[in-house]
């Protein structure tokens, strides 16, 4: 078996484990994806909810807060990610103490993800029927119950779908972050596969990322369908 693999993709077998190996790359990609999803997701969710409720028709309508949040999201979303990586360097140094490796990539990844996800959350939650929100207000519920009990509950199927979309885009960003020193499969594909003409490595890295994307997509679809009763 090993012989066969060595024959068709010699570089992959050579670079499988050890420092800068593919195995480590997989781990680093998962690491960056996980923490960005978690932290960026929570920040984006909070930001997205804040945008929905402070909107002029929202339950806590507040023009000033809405405008500030809206501008912040727009600005962060307009910065191309590669540039954001560079721009965020000083902040990264302060927050995590390093600018390289998967840990160093987290700050720009989160900065790039949170506003993107916030918009997705906003677009999803504004579709929750105003009538249902009104019925909860008529039942004597305040903003907290309406957010947790109505918005997040009624919006869940679509939130899952947009979250999957966001995680897939995070995987894409980790590859980019990897190329400028973050590590992960993106880094390996570029530094070994592309720059050293070891095409089998590029191919395997691509396939691994595809598998990751497909698995997340499939799990997300399954979950969304399960909670969707419309």
């Amino acid at each position, binding site marked *: 078996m090993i012989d066969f693999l060595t024959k068709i993709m010699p570089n992959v077998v050579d670079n499988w484990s050890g420092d800068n190996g593919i195995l480590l790359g997989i781990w680093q990609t998962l690491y960056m994806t996980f923490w960005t999803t978690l932290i960026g997701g929570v920040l984006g969710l909070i930001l997205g909810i804040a945008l929905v409720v402070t909107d002029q028709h929202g339950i806590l309508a507040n023009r000033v807060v809405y405008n500030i949040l809206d501008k912040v999201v727009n600005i962060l979303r307009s910065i191309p990610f590669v540039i954001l990586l560079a721009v965020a360097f000083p902040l990264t140094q302060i927050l995590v103490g390093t600018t390289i490796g998967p840990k160093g990539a987290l700050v720009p990844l989160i900065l790039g993800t949170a506003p993107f996800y916030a918009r997705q959350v906003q677009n999803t939650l504004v579709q929750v*029927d105003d*009538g*249902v929100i*009104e*019925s*909860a*207000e*008529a*039942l*004597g*519920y*305040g903003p907290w*119950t309406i957010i947790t*009990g*109505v918005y997040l*509950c*009624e919006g*869940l*199927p679509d939130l899952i779908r947009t979250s999957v979309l966001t995680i897939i885009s995070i995987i894409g960003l980790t590859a980019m972050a990897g190329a400028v020193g973050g590590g992960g499969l993106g880094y390996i594909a570029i530094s070994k596969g592309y720059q050293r003409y070891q095409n089998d490595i590029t191919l395997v890295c691509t396939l691994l990322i595809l598998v990751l994307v497909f698995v997340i997509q499939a799990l997300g679809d399954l979950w969304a369908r399960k*909670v*969707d*009763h*419309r």
Partner: protein
Amino acid sequence: MAEPIIDLKDICVTFKEDKRDVHAVDHVDLQINRGDIYGVVGYSGAGKSTLIRVINLLQRPTNAEARVEVNGTNLLGLNAASLRDERRKIGMIFQHFNLMHSLTITDNVEFALKKSNLSKADRKKRVAELLELVGLTEKANDFPSQLSGGQKQRVGIARAIANRPDILISDEATSALDPKTTVAILDLLADLNQKLGLTVVLITHEMDAVKRICNRVAVMEAGRLVETGDLLQIFSQPEAPLTKDFIDTTTHLESALAAVKQQPAIAHLKAGSVLVQLGYQGASTDQPLITELYRRFEVSANILYGNLEILQNTPVGNLLVVLSGTPKHTEQALVFMKEQRVSVKVLEKGTEEVAHD
């Protein structure tokens, strides 16, 4: 004296639309008594929805003079938390039901009990009791998408009365339903009014709905109440033109009259013949009026159209009749009927001379 449970004074709601002020509700006073089924009728855009949303302050009046008193509490003087407590005593149902699609019927009803003091087990018991009351026990574990419109509205009702409110506000709750389901839902509301002493405020554009269950009515047009009163009074003596229009949508009297007037015999009434509209209610319907007219005055009555309704167990009738006799006798007959507490409206008086051969 009946005790007012809802007392709205000088309510104005003004929206800004493209720098133009829209007076959705324009200086309205509304008093609703405990135990009433109060109907607010009007065409869409009349401001009905805006007005009833003022009752639980989902819509705040925009003028400083407004007073909103519910159950003796001045709602406008409350802070957010106390207002939420008061809202729990005012149930509300909606045209589009507004159920949560992600929850089962049981969970939708239980959602209303989130802030109640009941234990988990008691909540389950209460929900089962409510579903029983609205006749949906078998659907307890279904999702709203599996129910018909009428069933969804029953869930809406169960949810609205879960916290044992004193008042139920119905915002066009039957407008999205077919006629048969509408009747079933209206009867359920009337039943809850009887069983639980629930005061019901319903807004609708369907006079049939009002006629079926309301005891008091307000007619609304362009942000104002143009007429208010008991159902019987409104039906038998409508004053505002809009009220007449609405009543005609269920009695069809006006349309019948138009058709009647087309007939050649009516267009050329002979002298001594009159086309009259007779309105009567309750006791006066028991008398053999028409026979009496002939016996006393030799005036014959030809009934062209009639509408008889039973409103709150009282018969209310409207007839289009041609009375024929000698001119003198016809006059006497009209006077006699007025004495019998029958409202008489002369629509057409014959002038054509009787032809002599």
